């Protein structure tokens, strides 16, 4: 039970809103000590995992220069202007289309981007532009909501497309874990059983996108009302 000290520290740290990095490191050190590791041993484990997982930071670091460069030359403004020309576009529809593209491409094993390469420079400006064209100037809180949903569109497409059709990533993890436990399962069967949830997640996302569009209209109308 003493080994659960790390989970307790994480829960407490988040509840008290401590610096997340500090909370996480404290939890790691406490867990290591509770498991009987020495401090240098813990630091060596930290170093090992830190180096092994550099790829989590790598894509963000490498994509930010081009995103920053293009934003300086008006990429976000251009993406907003482009979407304003479309009469059918709403913020919700833009996000649904992006989630669909993301789900299908990741299902084929292709990762088309992520939060730094797609959401910030393209998807979120387009969603904001569509909402602006439809409803009028957006209150700051509404812009925040649209941006948060743009990040959600990326995550939901990514997560619930991955385990279908083409065996990549998670399906391989599942197979090797089960294999080590003495169960051999075909990749096809695992992918097949990922499909119902993928469809359900997409349908639910369409619902959330419609809720978002209604919320935008309501908040913009309330904003205009307040100005009168």
């Amino acid at each position, binding site marked *: 039970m003493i080994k659960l000290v790390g989970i307790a520290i994480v829960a407490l740290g*988040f509840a008290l809103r401590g610096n997340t990095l500090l909370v996480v490191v404290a939890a790691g050190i406490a867990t290591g000590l509770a498991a009987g590791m020495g401090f240098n041993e813990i630091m060596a484990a930290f170093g090992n995992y830190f180096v092994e997982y550099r790829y989590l930071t790598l894509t963000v670091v490498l994509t930010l220069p081009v995103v920053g460069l293009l934003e300086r030359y008006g990429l976000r403004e251009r993406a907003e202007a482009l979407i304003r020309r479309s009469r059918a576009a709403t913020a919700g529809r833009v996000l649904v289309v992006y989630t669909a593209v993301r789900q299908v491409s990741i299902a084929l094993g292709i990762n088309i981007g992520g939060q730094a390469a797609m959401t910030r420079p393209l998807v979120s400006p387009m969603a904001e532009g569509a909402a602006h064209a439809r409803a009028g100037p957006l209150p700051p809180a509404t812009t925040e909501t649209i941006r948060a949903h743009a990040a959600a569109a990326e995550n939901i497409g990514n997560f619930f497309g991955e385990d279908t059709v083409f065996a990549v990533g998670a399906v391989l993890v599942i197979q090797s874990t089960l294999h080590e436990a003495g169960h051999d399962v075909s990749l096809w069967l695992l992918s097949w059983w990922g499909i119902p949830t993928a469809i359900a997640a997409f349908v639910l996302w369409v619902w959330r996108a419609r809720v978002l569009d209604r919320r935008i209209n309501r908040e913009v109308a309330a904003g205009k009302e307040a100005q009168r």
Partner: protein
Amino acid sequence: MRLLSLDVFYVVAGMLLLGVAIGLAMDRSQPKRFGSALFWGVLAITFIAGNLVPPVVIGYLALALVLLAATKRMGGAKAAETSAEQRSASAARLGFWIFVPALLIPVTAVLGTLGLSKLHVGDVWLFSTVNVPVVSICLGAVVAVAAGLLLTRAPLRTPVNEGGRLLQTVGWAVILPQFLAVLGGIFAQAGVGAVVADLVARIFPMQFPFVAVLAYCAGMALFTICMGNAFAAFAVITLGIGLPFVVQAHHGNVAIMAAIGMLSGYCGTLVTPMAANFNLVPAMLLELKDKNAVIKAQAPVALAVWTFNVLLMYLCVYRF
């Protein structure tokens, strides 16, 4: 031989971080410039020399990064140097071409995954075989910078400076995903998962088939919320709850249980700040005031998909 692997891009990213650090240190108008420069400089060392230095040294360097962040030695990002009007004007001048470098990242990712990873001359391969999607995106990012420089005729220091400005916007949160993975590794090494699985198995009345399914899906979601990583949760919860109860005790189908179980874990990923790369880093990137806004946007879908998963698994796992 592999020409392009993660190691190559670690060095490229390290050089970039070093450039950012030097740029910040020399910029007198930057608040807390030396703290920020030190942070990105130390991170650069872990990228460039990660495999050359003993792990214990990297461990202490990582600890130094945390202390720099926790004692607020880092300054924020400066505002964009260009105005919205200037940007709109240059966007109008460049027209559709401004999208080309941005779209080169996904296009290169597609080409990389489908074709480039299979290119080779004798024993010399273009791509490393591990982590092809990540390598493809990295290559795409480098190609896109080159195209962006050609298009805008900006000097090389512009992408470094602008990239540095965005890095400052994200701040220390950019390395949070790495630390959460570290924590997951330490948890695994210390055997935390087995304790959690044992606890869940004792609390729930596992003689009922539905309870076994519920406990497994709940275990996947809750442990993912704690760890921030469904893959780490999968091994622990499947070995501790899934296989002994759903499969052995109630004769459920292994493939159905595992596939839907992993997706139940993802529902946990959508609602936890521990999955920083998915939930917190975007909040910083999109400059949101509420750092939990992304989680709030995802929570209704996560809960609904999780409920769907429990029902689907219960209806199918004992039947096929």
